């Protein structure tokens, strides 16, 4: 019983994550808050299950079990967050959902809906709402160092994972 609870702890965690996110997002309509609350609930559920499942293990085994359990939950939480985030930000997914709603759309109509101006204004609005960027006297400035750290980390990871000849620099979605 304890072994199975330990094994399934990350799964219980991501289920708690999803449940928490659904409840908070529908109650408050605040996606960012719902994601954070969901993650916290999921982490607590994972910790509780891992604690129960690893009770009685020798210290090295317990440490290993905790590392794998928390690591697995974080990986599952990243997948869950990505699903939600892509639903909001991905151009390809927005195209798919618009075609699901409208049936057919011409190339011209699609280009008008997703012009460079629309792409820029949508992203600037998102960055301004998230207080990562500020606007002063018609000039935009970076406000949050956290997102710059994220950019640096992504660039570093790209340099390791993808050889230079393959880095297109062209955006996705």
């Amino acid at each position, binding site marked *: 019983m304890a*072994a*199975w609870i*330990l*094994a399934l702890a*990350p799964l219980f965690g991501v289920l708690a994550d999803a449940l928490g996110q659904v409840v908070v997002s529908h109650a408050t*309509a605040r*996606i960012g808050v719902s994601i954070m609350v969901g993650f916290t609930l999921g982490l607590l559920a994972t910790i509780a299950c891992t604690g129960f499942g*690893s009770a009685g293990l020798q210290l*090295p*085994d317990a440490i*290993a079990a905790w590392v*794998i359990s928390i*690591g*697995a939950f974080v*990986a599952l939480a*990243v*997948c869950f967050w*990505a699903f*939600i985030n*892509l*639903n*909001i930000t991905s151009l*390809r*997914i927005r*195209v*798919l*959902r618009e*075609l*699901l709603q409208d049936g057919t*759309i*011409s*190339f*011209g109509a*699609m*280009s008008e809906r997703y012009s*460079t101006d629309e*792409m*820029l204004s949508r*992203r*600037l609005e*998102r*960055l301004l709402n998230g207080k990562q960027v500020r606007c*002063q006297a*018609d000039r935009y*400035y*970076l406000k949050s160092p956290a*997102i*710059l750290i*994220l*950019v640096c980390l992504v660039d570093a*990871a*790209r340099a*390791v*994972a*993808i050889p230079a*000849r*393959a880095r*297109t620099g*062209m955006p*996705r979605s």
Partner: protein
Amino acid sequence: MHPVYDLVTTVNRVSEAPKDHMVVSLSTLGLFVLALVAQVLVWRIWLPPRQTPALLVLFLVVPIVVFVTMASLGRLPVLAPADVVRALLFYVPCVLAYTILYSSFEMQSPTLMIVSYLASARGVGRTEPELRAHIGQVTPLEQRLRIMIAGGLLTEDGGVLSLSGQGRFFANLFEIGARVFGVAQAIKRGG
């Protein structure tokens, strides 16, 4: 001796005692790290034309190669079912999470392009025309739609786009997700 007979004999010969958590945990972690290293090395020798599917195949092939090698050396362990589940629940989500992150490495997101461009201004800031000119370097929409058509998500008939069967599946999946997870309002607000 027949290889299948050798494999079955090897598995039966191995101790059936439950493995230490440390051994299972380190082995699973090591397998994932090995697959990551393999990806970095393989990509430097040969870049697959479709990188994301190739990534998933690689992460599937590496464990198979490891297990076959261990079986041929007579060292294939017998794990308790709970240990197998624990290992899978670590390895598979890690692979999926890395694949998701890899897609952001493969092509730079317009949002991150904007952030990098603002950061390079060093306190001077950027005007909207400057940002528009910079973001104008992104892949034109039509080219992206062509990629989606080539990928089987969309069909085109006389300049009019519609969903393929595969596209409809994913569209429904994300539509249901948007309703269940309450993201519809965020989409309307632009995130």
